[in-house]
C-alpha cells in the first residue's frame, strides 16, 4: 500500500501540467524570498496564501510547500558572497562560507551549499516518508525536559564555535543569553527590561539579531571599501563553473557528515518548538565537534558550509511530521503553512498516515523534486552571482540596508525594532572590529527562550527528577561528553602553544 501510494502520487504529480507549473513557480518564488535578506519562507507563505484561495487543497499544498522548502537553498548565497544572511538559519553558513569567499573559494562554497541543500532536502523527504508510520512515539518522546537539555547541548556548542578564544566565546554567548531574557516573563507575566515597550514583550526576535550581528558590520565594511582595490575584490569572488562543481563534489567527499547532519536536521525539525535556527547551529556545532581539525572552522572549512545547509533543508521534512500527523506545527513556518492547509480544507491528524497517504506522498515528492529543481536552477544561475559582489558599494549597500530594515520591521511589526537593529548592529561591529566571535551571541539569543521556558515547565512537572528520565540521561551524557571534549581540545591546544 505504501509503495502503491508513493508511485501513484508521483505519477499524479508529474502528469499534471498544472501541478508541475505550481511546483516550478513555487520554487522560483521560494528562491527569490530566500535570496533577499530579511524576507524568508514565512513571509513567502503569507504572500502566497491569497493566491491559493479557491485552489484544490493538494494543488495549494504543493504550491506552498514547493516555495517554503527551497528558501534556505538560495538564502545561503548572500551569506557566502556578502556575509549577510538571506534567512535566519542561513547565518550559520556565514561563519565558514564568507571566509571561503574571502579566500577566493566562493565558487566552491556555492557549489557545496547548493549540493548540500539538495541532498539535505531529499533526505528530509525520505525521512518523512519512512517515519510517518512511527510518527506518534517519535514526536511524543520529546518533553520539556528533553527540550531543555537539547538547548543546553546547543549552548555547550558555544565553546566549539569560539575558535581559538573560549573565554571570549563564552562571554559573547552568555551575553546573547542575557539579551534573550528581555521579554515578558511567561511564568509570572512580569516585564523584564522591556520598559513598557510592547514590541519587546515577545523578546528580541532572531531575524533582527542575526541581521544586526552579521549584516550591519558587513554593510559598514562594504560601505567603507573604497580604499580596497576594486579589481582585487572582484577577483576574490569571481569563480568558474568548475569551482562550483568542485564544491558539489565536496558534499560527496564528506558524505558521512552530510548524512549525519541531514538526519540531525530532520530530527530537530520533528520536534515542535525548536525551529530552523536551532537545526543549522546545532549541525554546525556538530561538524566542528566531530572534525579532527576543528581549528580550520571559522576560517573557510567547507564542512562548515555543508553541515548547516543540509540541516536547513532536511528539517523541512522532519517538521512536516508533527504538522501533518498531529496538526501541531513543527516550526513557525509550519504554523503558517498549517493555517494555510486548514484554510484549503486539509485536515491534519493521524488519519494522514492511512487515509491521507496519497496526500502525504505528494508532499514528500514535492519536497524532493523542489529541492533538486532549486539546485539545478541555481547552478545554472551561478555564473551571475559573482557579478553581484562586483556591484559598486554605493548601489549595493543602500539596497541591502533597505531590505534588512524591511526584514526587521516585518519580523516585529514595529518601527522601534530599528533601534534594536542599530544597537545590536553596533555591538556586532565592535565584536568584529576587536576580533571577538559573533556566532555564540546568536546561539544564545535563539536558545535562551527555549532553555528557560522548558526548564520552568520541566521543574513544574517533575521537579529535579526530570534529569532522570531515560532520554534526559542520554542527553546529559552527550552534554558532559561535549564539555569534556572541549576541555581536552583546549588543553591540547595550550600544550601545543607551550611547546612551540
Amino acid at each position, binding site marked *: 500500500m505504501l509503495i502503491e501510494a508513493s508511485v501513484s502520487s508521483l505519477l499524479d504529480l508529474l502528469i499534471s501540467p498544472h501541478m508541475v507549473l505550481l511546483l516550478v513557480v513555487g520554487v522560483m518564488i521560494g528562491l527569490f524570498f530566500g535570496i533577499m535578506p530579511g524576507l524568508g519562507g*514565512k513571509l513567502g*507563505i*503569507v504572500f502566497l*496564501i491569497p493566491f491559493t*484561495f479557491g485552489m484544490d487543497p493538494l494543488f495549494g499544498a504543493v504550491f506552498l510547500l514547493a516555495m517554503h522548502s527551497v528558501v534556505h537553498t538560495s538564502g545561503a548565497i548572500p551569506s557566502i558572497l556578502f556575509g549577510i544572511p538571506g534567512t535566519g538559519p542561513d547565518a550559520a553558513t556565514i561563519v565558514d562560507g564568507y571566509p571561503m569567499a574571502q579566500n577566493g573559494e566562493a565558487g566552491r562554497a556555492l557549489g557545496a551549499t547548493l549540493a548540500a541543500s539538495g541532498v539535505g532536502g531529499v533526505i528530509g523527504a525520505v525521512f518523512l516518508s519512512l517515519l510517518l508510520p512511527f510518527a506518534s512515539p517519535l*514526536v*511524543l518522546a520529546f*518533553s*520539556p525536559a528533553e527540550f531543555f537539555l537539547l538547548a543546553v547541548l546547543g549552548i555547550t556548542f558555544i565553546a566549539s564555535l569560539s575558535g581559538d578564544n573560549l573565554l571570549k566565546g563564552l562571554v559573547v554567548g552568555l551575553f546573547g543569553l542575557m539579551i534573550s531574557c528581555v521579554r*515578558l*516573563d*511567561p*511564568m*509570572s*507575566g512580569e516585564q523584564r527590561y522591556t520598559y*513598557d515597550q*510592547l*514590541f519587546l*514583550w*515577545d523578546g528580541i526576535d532572531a531575524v533582527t539579531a542575526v541581521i544586526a550581528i552579521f549584516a550591519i558590520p558587513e554593510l559598514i565594511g562594504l560601505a567603507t571599501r573604497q580604499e580596497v582595490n576594486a579589481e582585487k575584490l572582484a577577483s576574490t569572488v569571481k569563480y568558474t563553473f568548475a569551482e562550483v562543481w568542485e564544491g558539489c563534489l565536496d558534499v560527496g567527499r564528506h558524505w558521512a557528515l552530510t548524512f549525519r547532519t541531514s538526519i540531525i536536521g530532520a530530527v530537530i525539525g520533528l520536534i*515542535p*518548538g525548536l525551529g530552523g535556527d536551532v537545526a543549522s547551529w546545532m549541525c554546525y556545532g556538530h561538524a566542528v565537534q566531530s572534525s579532527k581539525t576543528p581549528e580550520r572552522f571559522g576560517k573557510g572549512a567547507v564542512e562548515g558550509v555543508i553541515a548547516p545547509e543540509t540541516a536547513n533543508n532536511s528539517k523541512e521534512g522532519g517538521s512536516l511530521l508533527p504538522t501533518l500527523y*498531529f*496538526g*501541531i*506545527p513543527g516550526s*513557525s513556518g509550519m*504554523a*503558517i*503553512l*498549517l*493555517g*494555510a492547509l*486548514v*484554510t484549503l*480544507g486539509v*485536515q*491534519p*491528524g*493521524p*488519519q494522514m498516515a492511512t487515509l491521507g497517504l496519497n496526500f502525504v506522498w505528494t508532499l514528500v515528492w514535492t519536497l524532493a523534486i523542489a529541492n533538486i529543481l532549486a539546485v539545478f536552477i541555481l547552478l545554472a544561475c551561478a555564473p551571475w552571482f559573482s557579478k553581484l559582489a562586483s556591484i559598486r558599494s554605493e548601489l549595493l549597500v543602500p539596497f541591502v540596508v533597505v531590505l534588512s530594515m524591511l526584514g526587521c520591521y516585518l519580523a*516585529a*511589526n*514595529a518601527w522601534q525594532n530599528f533601534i534594536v537593529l542599530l544597537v545590536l548592529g553596533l555591538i556586532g561591529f565592535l565584536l568584529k572590529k576587536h576580533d571577538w566571535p559573533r556566532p555564540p551571541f546568536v546561539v544564545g539569543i535563539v536558545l535562551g527562550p527555549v532553555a528557560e*521556558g522548558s526548564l*520552568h*515547565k520541566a521543574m*513544574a*512537572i517533575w521537579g529535579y527528577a526530570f534529569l532522570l528520565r531515560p532520554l534526559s540521561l542520554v542527553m546529559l551524557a552527550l552534554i558532559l561528553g561535549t564539555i569534556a571534549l572541549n576541555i581536552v581540545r583546549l588543553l591540547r591546544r595550550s600544550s601545543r602553544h607551550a611547546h612551540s
Partner: protein
Amino acid sequence: MFKKIWATCLVVLAGLLLSSPVLADSTLFDGKTITYIVATKPGGGYDTMGRLVAKYLEKHLKGSRVVVKNVPGAGHLIGAKTIFAAKPDGLTIGTFNTSLINSQLTNAIADHPDMNQMSWIGKAAIESRVLLVSAMSEFKNFDDFRKAQRTVKMATSGKGSASHIDASLLAKAFDLNMEFIHGFEGSEAEMSILRGEIDAHVGSRSSLQPFVDNGYGRILLEIGGEPGSKLPQASDLATTDRSRSVLSLIEAQARISRLTAGPGNVNPLVLQTLREAYMSATSDPDFLAEADKLKLPISTASGEAVTALVKAALAQSPEIVGLLKEVLKEE
C-alpha cells in the same frame, strides 16, 4: 405669526433630520483600501476567521479592497492598540482576543485601549471554552475531575493569558484544586496532555475540537456553549450565585468572539456602512459554506449588539474585579 410658524417648522425639520437614523452609503468605500488588522501571526483561528471576514467584507463593500495585515505581539495587545490608535476614517479595522476585557478590568496594563470606546462592527462567533483532558485520562467526566484527590496540573499559555484566567475562574467557581503551569504556547498544551505530563487545559472549543475528533482528547465541560450543545454545561452545574456570576464573566467573553472593531469616534455613516456590510458578509451563503468547510462555528451579532455586550462585560461588580486581580496576583 407667520414668522413663528416658519420658525417652528424649521425647528421641527431640524429635529427630524438630527434624529433620523443614519443610512448607510454603499458607495462610501468605492476605490478605497481597508486594512484589516489581525492581532496574531499568520495561521491559527484568528487569522483564518479574519481572512475569511476580510474576503467577504470586500465583496459586500462595493468597489473596496480589504487587505489583511498581521500585527502580532504582547498577547494581541499590539494589534488592538494599532486599531485603537488608527485614524477614525473606517479604513483601519481588525480583530483581537476578547480577553483584553479582563486586562482592562484589572488595570494591569498602562495605556490599555478602552474597549468601551472602540467602534464595534460586529462579531462572528460564540467561542465557548472547554475543559480538555487526555482521552486516556483517569477523569471520565467533570464529577471525577471535581473529586480529584490530588492537585490537577493545568497548562496555560502564560500568566494572565485567556487560558490562565478562564481556568482560574473555573477553579474559583467550583473550588477546584489546580496547579498552573505556564508557558504552553500554541498547541504545546495538547502535546503535553498527549504525553501525560499535564492533566488538563482550558481553551476555545473550535481550536481544541480537532484534537478531540482525532481521538486524543476528551471534553469534560463547556462554558458558554450554545443552546443544543451536547456537552455538559458549566452553568447547569453551578449551585451558588457566586459560581454563576464567576462563570458569567467567561460566558460573556465567549459570546463576543471573533469580533471586528475600529478605532473610537468613527463617523456614524461610515460605521453604519461597515456594520451593514459585515452583517451581509457574514450571512452570505458562500461565507457560511467556507466557514463550514473550515469547521468555524458562526454566530453573528451586529455592532450595536456587541457594543452593549462589551459594555455589560466591562461593568463587573467590585467582587469580580477583585477576584480577577487575585487570580493574577496568585502564585
